[in-house]
């Protein structure tokens, strides 16, 4: 074993110990599509998504192929945007576009204040700010349908010294996600290091909530025990979903439902998507 390969093995082991759900080494399985995606993005093949909340007459939504950011947007990347667009700096952003807590984890308008923070997902950004950032990088925010569709993929379980690599799906995946949602906020891991899925998308679970383009489009009541949707065929809220046992998905919809576009929240960030025009 050469020095280089030994060092690499050690690095992999350390990474595996540090991020037990993603070893940071070779993916357990190659992504479905890789060739055409722009840097930092992966291809999500088209297909059909069955909306979580049942709407009369809509059994599934067609998803066109798209590219999705591998990881959540970082503070460092967002600083580039703010530097180029100083109207989006903390002291200049109008209250109508971002609440008082906007980027409050930063030291000042143009100073993040810490390397670890630079590489962590940006949070405390309003939907307006996330939307503006996406436009600036010639991308857009994912729709709920796109986000949830990409999130349906099984998670990859990277190899560790004691077990082979594999995937986590079904109940096990659900439990893993639920366990994260059930824990209080902790310090954020560097973006791109958590829970890679079969498409090669990381951080969808286990890092931060993420804005979606149409976060406020689903007409669900703030009181989930009521009617899920005025146009739904079923009465009670939970009955109006495709799977009342999917608590993790309930939580994401509840979170989206609690937001307004100017809100800034400590554990709410975003990622971008782009059209796959090929």
């Amino acid at each position: 074993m050469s020095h280089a390969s030994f060092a690499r093995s050690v690095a992999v082991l350390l990474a595996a110990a540090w991020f037990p759900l993603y070893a940071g080494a070779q993916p357990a399985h190659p992504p479905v599509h890789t060739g055409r995606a722009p840097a930092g993005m992966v291809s999500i093949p088209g297909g059909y998504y069955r909306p979580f909340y049942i709407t009369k007459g809509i059994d599934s939504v067609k998803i066109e192929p798209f590219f999705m950011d591998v990881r959540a947007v970082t503070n460092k990347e967002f600083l580039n945007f703010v530097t180029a667009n100083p109207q989006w700096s903390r002291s200049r952003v109008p209250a109508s576009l971002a609440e008082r807590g906007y980027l409050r984890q930063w030291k000042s308008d143009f100073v993040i204040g810490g390397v670890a923070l630079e590489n962590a997902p940006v949070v405390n950004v309003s939907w307006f700010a996330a939307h503006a950032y996406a436009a600036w990088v010639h991308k857009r925010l994912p729709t709920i349908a796109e986000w949830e569709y990409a999130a349906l993929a099984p998670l990859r379980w990277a190899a560790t010294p004691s077990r082979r690599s594999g995937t986590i799906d079904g109940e096990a995946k659900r439990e893993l996600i639920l366990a994260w949602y059930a824990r209080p906020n902790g310090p954020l891991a560097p973006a791109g290091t958590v829970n890679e899925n079969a498409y090669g998308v990381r951080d969808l679970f286990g890092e931060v909530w993420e804005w979606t383009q149409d976060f406020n489009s689903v007409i669900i009541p703030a009181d989930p025990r009521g009617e899920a949707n005025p146009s739904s065929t079923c009465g009670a809220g939970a009955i109006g979903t495709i799977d009342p046992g999917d608590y993790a998905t309930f939580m994401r919809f509840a979170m989206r439902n609690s937001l307004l576009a100017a809100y800034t929240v400590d554990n709410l960030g975003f990622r971008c998507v782009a059209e796959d025009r090929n």
Partner: protein
Amino acid sequence: MMSRSKPLAAFLLPLFCITSFIACGKKSGELPALTGATREAVLTEPPMVPARVNEDGPQKVVVHLEVREVVKPLTNGATYTYWTFGGCVPGKFIRVTEGDEVEFHLSNPSSSKMPHSIDLHAVSGPGGGAEASFTAPGHTSVFSFRATTPGIYVYHCAAAPVPMHIANGMYGLIFVESRSNPLPPVDHEYYIMQSEIYTTGHYGDTGLQEFSFDKGLAEQPTYVVFNGSVGSTLGPTALKAKVGETVRLFVGDAGPNLASNFHIIGQIFDNVYEEGGTNVNHDVSTTEIPVGGATIVEFKIRAPGTYHIVDHAIFRAFNQGAVADIVATGPEDSTVYSHQQRYENYQ
């Protein structure tokens, strides 16, 4: 002029009174005018209950309650991520008087992961406040309601998925005391709630325990507890009383699944305010409390010693944690209870 207007006034005044009386009876008979005074509600952590407030009349009562997601002990060596109203399980006790206008401020700190809300069973209105109080992390909701109906009521979070929010500890009691017929004075008032905890691990497993959806759906709890954890009210934290004193317990059942067969070993309840309503039963040993319901029990301590509060579905007490204690001190009275007098061979 004066003499001519008098008969008219004499005619109009009774008419005015009658119409206003009818209007009162129709529209606001249950809602007497507020005195104009405002007070901040004193909230207490279990097992304590706020003292009764002597008001001149219905007031505006401001309640500030903060949601907190905290990791706390579940049993020896095990912890659980509790979602709480005020940092404790059950949530802080709220006490108001019939007719008060409650201005409720529900705050969800930015450190929270989840949106939360509150449905108070004391509210007359759709959702019990749930929709009005649905709050994202880092925000506060304010809504008001009139405490129209006396009683002891459960409150709980109603954000999706509701069963998990309740299972994780988001419940408490609000007492709306009758203005015309307040409860008689007692020596001690305490606050207890029974609930179940569903974990992926077994009873007694150590470390941070995680919520089990499967066990919750199957209604097979890992733990059944009083006041949120195994042993919350045992030993140094047991309830205290002296011989000859009267005790009132405000007892709620948060579920999420199991009704309580509420019993105190070695006690007979002098009064049970059944389901928190106006029906008062006497000389009861075990009373059932439905999930989402609450009751008030009163009794007198007649002999010193330790009294175990249990759910008399007894596996829950013996194997799942549903025990709390009252430690009573004072002189023995052998005419009330003798202890063992003889122990003999029997063949």
